[in-house]
């Protein structure tokens, strides 16, 4: 119940964040712009609308997760609002989980708005809405949950600016980590071990990317879906556990 109170309060705080509305506005603008672009596209414009729409939701979701997420904990410490919370009979990890859940609720609300925008565009442009579109959206949201957990982890021990840089770096490396594995095959044994260790430690965010499947109508079965969900949720849980340990040991000066 206390986690829920903190989550609701965080959600309320996020709703008063102007940045959120700016990002949301641009996301909708970009999704809508695919209508214009499709008019100057030769051939199959369905692919363009789907690709641009899903990519916009992904990109702006990540931007919201990072720029709102990094402030979650560091802002509470900087503004000293955390003093009155930690002095109450609330374990620190509950506070952290509450903040995380609050941001996930915020992201969910934002994603819903963007998805409604996309569905309207798809409807208007007569693009068939398949179950794959929804699977893709679900995994985009899962990726946002992982990125948020990364942002929360960094913000438990470093400043907001550094957290943003680190989280963006993890996001980018996370999408390129497949290349990292390929690259390791060409190295000697020791270097291979190091590169592989990095590969397995960082999240493989390409696993959450179903845009290719949607555009090329490739099936993504329920078993694959369940496995990817399990991977994402386990990874986020592991990051939050790490964040809780760091947060528990911290002095609030």
């Amino acid at each position, binding site marked *: 119940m*206390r986690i829920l109170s903190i989550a609701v309060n965080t959600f*309320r705080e996020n709703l008063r964040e102007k940045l959120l509305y700016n990002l949301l506005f641009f996301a909708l603008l970009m999704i809508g712009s695919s209508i214009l672009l499709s008019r100057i596209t030769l051939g199959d414009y369905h692919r363009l609308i789907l690709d641009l729409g899903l990519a916009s939701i992904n990109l702006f979701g990540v931007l919201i997760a990072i720029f709102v997420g990094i402030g979650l904990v560091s802002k509470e410490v900087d*503004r000293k*609002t*955390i003093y009155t919370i930690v*002095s109450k*009979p*609330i374990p620190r990890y509950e506070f952290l989980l509450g903040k995380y859940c609050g941001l996930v609720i915020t992201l969910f609300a934002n994603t819903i708005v963007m998805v409604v925008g996309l569905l309207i565009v798809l409807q208007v442009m007569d693009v068939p809405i398949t179950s794959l579109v929804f699977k893709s959206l679900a995994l985009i949201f899962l990726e946002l949950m992982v990125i948020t957990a990364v942002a929360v982890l960094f913000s438990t021990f470093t400043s907001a600016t550094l957290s943003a840089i680190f989280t963006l770096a993890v996001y980018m490396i996370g999408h390129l980590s497949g290349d990292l594995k390929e690259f390791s095959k060409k190295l000697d044994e020791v270097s291979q071990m190091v590169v592989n260790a990095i590969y397995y430690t960082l999240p493989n965010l390409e696993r959450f990317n179903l845009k290719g499947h949607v555009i090329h109508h490739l099936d993504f079965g329920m078993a694959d879906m369940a496995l990817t969900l399990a991977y994402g949720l386990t990874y986020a849980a592991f990051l939050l556990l790490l964040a809780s340990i760091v947060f528990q040991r911290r002095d*609030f*000066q």
Partner: protein
Amino acid sequence: MEHSDSILKTAGLRKTFKVGFWGRSVTALEGLDLDVRQGEVFGFLGPNGAGKTTTIKMLMGLIYPTSGQAWLFGRPIGDQESKARLGFLPESPYFYDYLTGLEFLQFYGHLFGLRGVALGKRIDELLELVGMSHARHLQLRKFSKGMLQRVGIAQALINDPELVVLDEPMSGLDPVGRKEIRDLILRLKESGKTIFFSSHILHDAELLCDRVAIILKGRQVACGRVSELIDEGVAHSVEVVIDGLGPEELARLRQMADRVIVQGSQVLVVLPSRQQVGSVLELIRGARATLVSLTPQKGSLEDLFIREVKNKQPELREAV
């Protein structure tokens, strides 16, 4: 434990911080021993940077002690059960400024599992107590500093705590605001709560506290009842104002007094102790002069404070 009614106790509490690139160690608090008993108002005094906030943060579980121990309600600090019996107002409190007074108190109520009608009733009582009923639907960002301090105290009382810890509750407030907070502290004491507050405003502490501890640069230099601390070693000076003294008497007076200030026909004499009063009265009678007033001067916490700085910690003089 020495006293069964001990609410807050520390033993050799110590905190060092690492600062700078090389992690140089700086001691913020050096072996603090406190014992706050049930129902008393305890003042924790010292200049800025003495280690007051550091101590309070350790007691509240915000930072961890480097060594030493502390107990609240007989349990080691950080214990969730003792936190449930505690109320805390941080120094210059910053709160969620997008909330209204009512939402703010609801949020803290929820953290204690209070809900519905019981919480509504409690919030009404508290807003009434701190005189903030008019601001229940106003966002905290529109509050003045005094209003924030008062709603902050309401927040600290939401769980009806047995011990209330206030960090510099009077700092930054105007005289009216300070008086309101003083009255509030006295009302809390009347309702049986134990109050532990830090301050560098000695006058307030003198008016409120049963006992005080004074710390300087992380070291405790005095602890005890205010009256005992003030009396201890302080010579009680006496101020006498006399009208119509001749130059000869004035010369005799100068030998007895610490200070003699002549203003027109009146003379203000400061005697070092009460023992000289008799001879001064005789002198007045002999000279047929008029005694205008005679005021025994009480020692103040400020005198004690400055004496402690001068005597026990000569190297710390620049700190005050």
